[in-house]
């Protein structure tokens, strides 16, 4: 025992190193395995407050661009309002504006709700990138909700604290998003190879389908996270992988990940019901 203590004392430096390095490596592995868990919910509050402070300062200089973007988005949304569209159906002709359309039509049921959020921290050049937003549990934000911007989808919420949340960016090695080609509804999976922040990969599209550069990729709506039809990006290159009989498709993200300012968290009001159904069908198998 004495010898052991003497031995440990003599090599304190080395053993302390092993201890600390061990802790750090366990942390690395934990983080890698449970990226979708709430490991960092205790530190979110601290980091969030600091980022918020500096984001407020830097935002001041970007006000002009932000305003323009919001205005453009407003215009786009106005275009798809019910009141901007002529409806020939006589049964709906009475309902002139959107509000009455929403409140009176019994067949209308809210499925997704959008919560406006501000991006307060973002990275694009790591192997796994995260986005921090200024809302959390108090605003009803939960894990596995989608995050989108004015141009396209951004990521998925992975951890929340009372006032802040971290979302896994589309630029993350674990991202798998169910997507489809807009022109023919062919299903595929969107992921990120870690090359650069402008391009992603679409896989699982069989080769007998015609894919050309410029084709639009949208969400499929099968994941319970994103509604159908949100923009993801545009195909830039499609080559055939002969082994798998699939295309290797690279595409350009619609969202500019280098300039994220505002976004929306997408709440699926029926997610619990859908998840329960999936769980039940798993048990009965």
């Amino acid at each position: 025992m004495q010898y052991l203590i003497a031995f440990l004392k003599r090599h304190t430096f080395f053993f302390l190193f092993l201890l600390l390095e061990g802790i750090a490596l366990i942390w690395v592995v934990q983080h890698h395995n449970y990226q979708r868990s709430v490991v960092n919910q205790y530190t979110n509050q601290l980091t969030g407050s600091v980022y918020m402070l500096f984001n407020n300062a830097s935002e001041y200089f970007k006000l002009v661009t932000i305003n323009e973007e919001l205005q453009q988005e407003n215009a786009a949304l106005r275009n798809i309002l019910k009141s901007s569209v002529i409806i020939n159906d006589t049964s709906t002709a009475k309902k002139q504006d959107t509000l009455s359309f929403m409140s009176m039509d019994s067949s209308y049921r809210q499925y997704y709700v959008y919560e406006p959020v501000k991006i307060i921290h973002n990275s694009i050049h790591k192997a796994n990138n995260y986005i921090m937003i200024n809302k959390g549990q108090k605003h009803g934000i939960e894990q596995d909700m989608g995050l989108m911007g004015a141009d396209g989808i951004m990521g998925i919420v992975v951890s929340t604290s009372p006032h802040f949340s971290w979302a896994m960016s589309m630029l993350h090695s674990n991202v798998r998003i169910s997507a489809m080609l807009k022109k023919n509804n062919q299903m595929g999976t969107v992921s990120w190879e870690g090359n650069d922040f402008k391009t992603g990969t679409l896989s699982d599209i069989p080769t007998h389908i015609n894919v050309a550069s410029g084709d639009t990729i949208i969400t499929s709506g099968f994941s319970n996270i994103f509604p159908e039809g949100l923009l993801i990006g545009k195909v830039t290159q499609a080559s055939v992988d002969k082994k798998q009989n699939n295309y290797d498709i690279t595409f350009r993200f619609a969202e500019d990940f280098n300039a994220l300012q505002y976004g929306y968290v997408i709440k699926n009001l029926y997610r619990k019901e859908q998840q329960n159904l999936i769980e039940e069908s798993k048990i009965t198998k």
Partner: protein
Amino acid sequence: MYLKHVIRFFLLILLQVIILNQVNLNGYIDPYLYLLFILLLPFETPRWLLLVMGFFTGSIIDIFSNTGGIHAAATTFMAFARPGVINLISKKSEFDTGSEPCITDMGSKWFYLYSLYLILLHHALLFTLEIFRFNKPVELIYRITLSALVTLMLVILSQYLFPKRPKK
């Protein structure tokens, strides 16, 4: 004077988290200037304290950039290697009391070598852990080398911008 190091610690962490983490050069280059703090700790720093400071500094960076332990691991490793690197590149085994591992006290050649070795060790472990899969060894080496060079340049630049004041 511990105050100097405490202030330097906070300034470097803020600089790293608020500015340098947002900088993206060429998609491959991530400068990590925060490790200047470990580089400039005095020679007399006990070795155990060196390790603790390394772990602590790395952890703070990890918490802020949500990188889960990779900075803690790399910076602890760098702190562990520091005494060895100092022995390796120094001719004298004894230093003048009160001297610090900076350009003013040790000369530029010594400081370049010292920083280069430690930054390379740090970045090598950091980027290896970050990528976690070894399917792109060339890209990995490319990233390590480029980022280490930029970090080194910033470290050296900081030495000329804020030189240690000579003792009265």
